[in-house]
């Protein structure tokens, strides 16, 4: 079935690129955010706050944006495909259901990698001097986080009634997660209840992992984050296997 998976993935990439705004909305916008804010922060007289934000806050924020837009795009595509009977049509072939969904995950991960590369390439001069992020490790951290959180996308795609609601409902579920991610307020400084919520959501582990790796932490310092993200993937995948609707 590998041939089918690769072919389907390739076809889905081509289709995605033909979508007007599809590629621009999901790839270019996060990169633009990085460049615009990076430029604003790029002053001769940085304050400690702007400096710390430019050092690690901004790249992680943009990474989260890249991740969330990949998940939203997945939710939209899956619900459009379900509504149009495309999923059902694909299921009436020898393709395994998990192969169909894996193809979409692969497309989104590739999209994420491309967005990240663009951000690094286009925004290199906004990365403050003295910060030398391990780009490759960071990419792995982002892909791992995206992979984990994409599994929520399948659950969201199952609960949206029609494709029209996919984007708004997806946003309602995902954006609050960013608030609890520790990106703006560190999880350790949150009130206890909020801290519990943060720990119950994958986004906090994603942020902790990506921040750490960006600043040069070794992977061994973030085994908990990695384990949590993998665990979330399996839990969410198990749930979506139960609730996922093909038609």
């Amino acid at each position, binding site marked *: 079935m590998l041939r089918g998976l690769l072919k389907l993935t390739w*076809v889905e990439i081509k289709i995605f690129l033909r979508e007007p705004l599809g590629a621009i909305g999901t790839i270019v916008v996060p990169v633009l955010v990085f460049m615009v804010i990076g430029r604003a922060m790029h002053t001769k007289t940085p304050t400690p706050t702007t400096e710390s934000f430019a050092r690690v806050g901004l790249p992680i924020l943009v990474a989260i944006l890249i991740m969330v837009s990949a998940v939203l795009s997945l939710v939209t595509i899956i619900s459009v495909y379900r509504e149009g*009977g495309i999923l059902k*049509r694909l299921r009436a072939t*020898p393709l395994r259901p998990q192969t169909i969904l894996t193809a979409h995950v692969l497309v989104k991960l590739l999209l994420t990698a491309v967005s990240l590369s663009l951000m690094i390439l286009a925004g290199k001069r906004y990365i403050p001097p003295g910060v030398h992020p391990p780009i490759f490790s960071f990419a792995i951290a982002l892909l791992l986080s995206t992979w984990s959180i994409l599994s929520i996308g399948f659950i969201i795609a199952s609960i949206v009634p029609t494709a029209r609601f996919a984007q708004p409902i997806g946003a309602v579920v995902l954006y609050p997660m960013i608030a609890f991610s520790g990106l703006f307020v560190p999880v350790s400084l949150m009130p206890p209840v909020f801290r519990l919520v943060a720990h119950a959501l994958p986004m906090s582990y994603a942020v902790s992992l990506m921040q750490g790796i960006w600043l040069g932490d070794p992977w061994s310092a973030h085994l908990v984050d990695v384990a949590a993200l993998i665990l979330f993937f399996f839990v969410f995948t198990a749930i979506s296997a139960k609730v996922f609707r093909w038609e």
Partner: protein
Amino acid sequence: MRPVIQVSGVRKTYGSTIAVAEASFEVYEGEIFGLIGPNGAGKTTTMECIEGLRKPDQGTISVLGLDPFRQVYKLQNRIGVQLQQAQLQKRIKVWEAVDLWASLYQKKTVDGDRLLEQLGLTEKRSAWFMNLSGGQKQRLFIALALINDPEVVFLDELTTGLDPQSRRAIWDLVRGIRMRGKTVFLTTHLMEEAERLCDRVAVMDHGRIIDIDTPESLVLRHCPERTVIVDTGDPAAAQHFQAIPGVEGVECAENRFTIRGRGELVTEVIHCLSENRIRVTDFRTILPNLEDVFLKLTGRSIRE
């Protein structure tokens, strides 16, 4: 003849809705078998159980000797499927769809370009799915259903929403599928389609199969009434018509006679006309069709 599909006592409910109450029938190798009935009769559910896409609550199904639900992947390699109201990705190109489908089967597939040519889609090879006309979309779905050189082809409401011209073109294609020795199982709510295309039909209503036979036999069995209309100025005609065996009534208005009867009425009337040298200025027959059979069997028109 060898049965390729055997359906026995199938029942399928969704919550409190009974989609299929009881369905039992066999489809033989090399025939075009039609499941006919109004929308909501349970045709699609029955078909999707046979394709292995749904699991019946009760009953057994065998397709090419396989259990469609448990051996669905094995089965899908050997059948071709066109689903009702299915779509493809809006911006997938025709050739990409055919190429993708060809890669999904574990057996040797047919030449996609030749298939597109046979279905008249060569010019649309690089067109996006969303820019195809209704007829072109259906032809593409037929191509996808045939790409793995299947033994049985399933067509669900193939011509719904098409204009009469495209419909006729599709009928020719379906006959072509049978000519290649394949078995075709189709559903339709168009009685004309069933009459023109199917070797045998099963009439379905409210989740039950009411009767199964060739269209001609069904008409003969359930609607044996025949009507012949003859225009003639012959003053003796009325007498002669009354004397035809099997005649149940003769009405006359001006010079137009309406003769009602059953069975071999048409032959008898022609015989009578020639025997008595009756000069005729017009001759028409009104024969019942599957539409009438359905009305008779269910007490209502299929269009309601």
